């Protein structure tokens, strides 16, 4: 293996054995003008090889534009997690989920597999009230120890409510986009391109900001 040493591969195997159902990892790449697509493909291939329940589907953002549209994929490389029936669950990783982001990848895979973590009744009630579309962007760097926690929370919110969609965006891979969103500290969370905050804040803070988009 190129990226995972034996010890890490064994740990991952053990962790992924906690999956309930199968999960498909849909990887969107593109032929030209994508510096990290090949490496991302190699990394993801290696990662999914540690579990028989993980399946890779290679897609091209241009050639498979139907699927790209269906899964709301706007850039490459982009990774979409699909459940056992290949349903889109509104969560994505834009850029490679290596470094610390391996942890958000793991937790989201386990969630999508059907082994879902229960939230408190109070939080659950607030999530259920969201009835207008919400887009959450979480900008991260791979060396940031706190970022994966924020991605994990954004993804969890999307998994719990069909009106919410959540994207991890690796700030160095998508440098221009990070500039556009004025990212200078990570994790930076942007909601509906309008409300934003910095840091791996509690779910309550995510919901406080999300609820601002629900008025009128």
């Amino acid at each position, binding site marked *: 293996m190129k*990226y*995972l040493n034996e010890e*890490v591969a064994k*740990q*991952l195997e*053990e*962790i992924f*054995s*906690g999956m309930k159902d199968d999960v498909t990892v849909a990887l969107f790449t593109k032929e030209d003008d994508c510096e990290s697509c090949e*490496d991302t493909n190699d*990394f993801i291939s290696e990662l999914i090889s540690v579990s028989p329940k993980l399946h890779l589907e290679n897609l091209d953002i241009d050639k498979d534009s139907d699927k790209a549209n269906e899964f709301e994929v706007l850039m490459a490389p982009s990774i979409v997690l699909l459940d056992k029936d290949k349903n889109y669950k509104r969560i994505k990783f834009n850029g*490679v989920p*290596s*470094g*610390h982001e*391996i*942890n958000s990848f*793991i937790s989201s895979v386990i969630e999508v597999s059907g082994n879902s973590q229960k939230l*408190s009744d109070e939080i659950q009630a607030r999530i259920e009230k969201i009835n207008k579309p919400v887009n959450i962007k979480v900008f991260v*760097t791979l*060396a*940031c*120890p*706190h*970022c*994966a*926690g924020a991605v994990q929370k954004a993804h969890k919110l999307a998994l719990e409510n069909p009106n919410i969609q959540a994207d991890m965006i690796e*700030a*160095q891979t998508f440098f221009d986009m*990070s500039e556009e969103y*004025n*990212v*200078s*500290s*990570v994790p*930076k969370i942007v909601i509906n391109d309008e409300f934003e905050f*910095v840091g791996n804040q509690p779910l309550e803070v995510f919901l406080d900001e999300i609820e601002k988009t629900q008025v009128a």
Partner: protein
Amino acid sequence: MDVNLNLSSNTSKEKLTLDKEIIYDLIVIGGGPAGLNTALYAKRKGLNVGIIARDLGGQVLDTSSVENYLGFVSLSGEELMKKFINHVNELKVPILEYEEVETIRLKDSSSLREVVLKNGLVFNTYSVVIATGSKPRRLGVPGEKEYSGKGVCYCAICDGPLFAGEEVIVAGGGNSAVEAAIDLAKITKKVTIIHRSQFRADQILIDQLAKFDNVESKLQTQILEVQGDKFMTGVKVLNKNSSTEEIIESAGLFVEIGYLPNSEIFADLLELNERNEIVVDGHGKTSVEGIYAAGDVTDIPYKQIIMSAGDGAKCALAVNEYLNTINK
């Protein structure tokens, strides 16, 4: 491309967590070096101990390299914490992670203590060791808050990559500041390190910093203000020797000027000193019986990883003696 598996990615499927039906001998609040070593020593003494932590590993995780922990010439903060946590996991100490404590309640004249979490859960124990550590100190100058997340940063390893090829400033003169400057010098165009007095960092680090030709040091210099429009554009500083002010242009300011204790929730319960550190005696005892404190949250001088770890060991042994004196 590598992977940094979480410290808590416990490979054993059954994760040990805390039981609210039992009375613990000791509950440790905090998952950094002090808290982990308290738990290790307490467990080995045979105490029924559990850890409640907001995040395991603590601030050491934000340290790119540790070169002063005896026995390890050089390793990352994360690697060191993994070793600590694996060691504690070997002893099967239950850990409740991602939870914050709201307060500690005393039960009248009994020696029972209740640890109350923000989510409402309550755990019973005969003793508590507070090892909640500290958080980065702010400069406290105009513009700092306004440009926080817009150029003003508190985690060099997190945010450094966003300033690749740009000019940045590091505020501070201790080990953390010099380490941050070294990390940033590798990826940015220029680093200016600003400190109001002389360097306090270890000479070995100052020597390492001197090897970079894109680092400029401005000592005896005080940051007065962070300036900018949409983003920060620079800082206004006062050179204390010449009593002159100047503007240093910069896209980023990394604040590494030390730490503040995470003691707010104990302010009404325990004696704190003027720096808001929990006052402890030579055995780690606080002003309230059955409650001990270890590491950066206390008034012990010199905050270092090895000292926090040692402090945790001391508290565990003191708690063990204390438990022998009370009626359970």
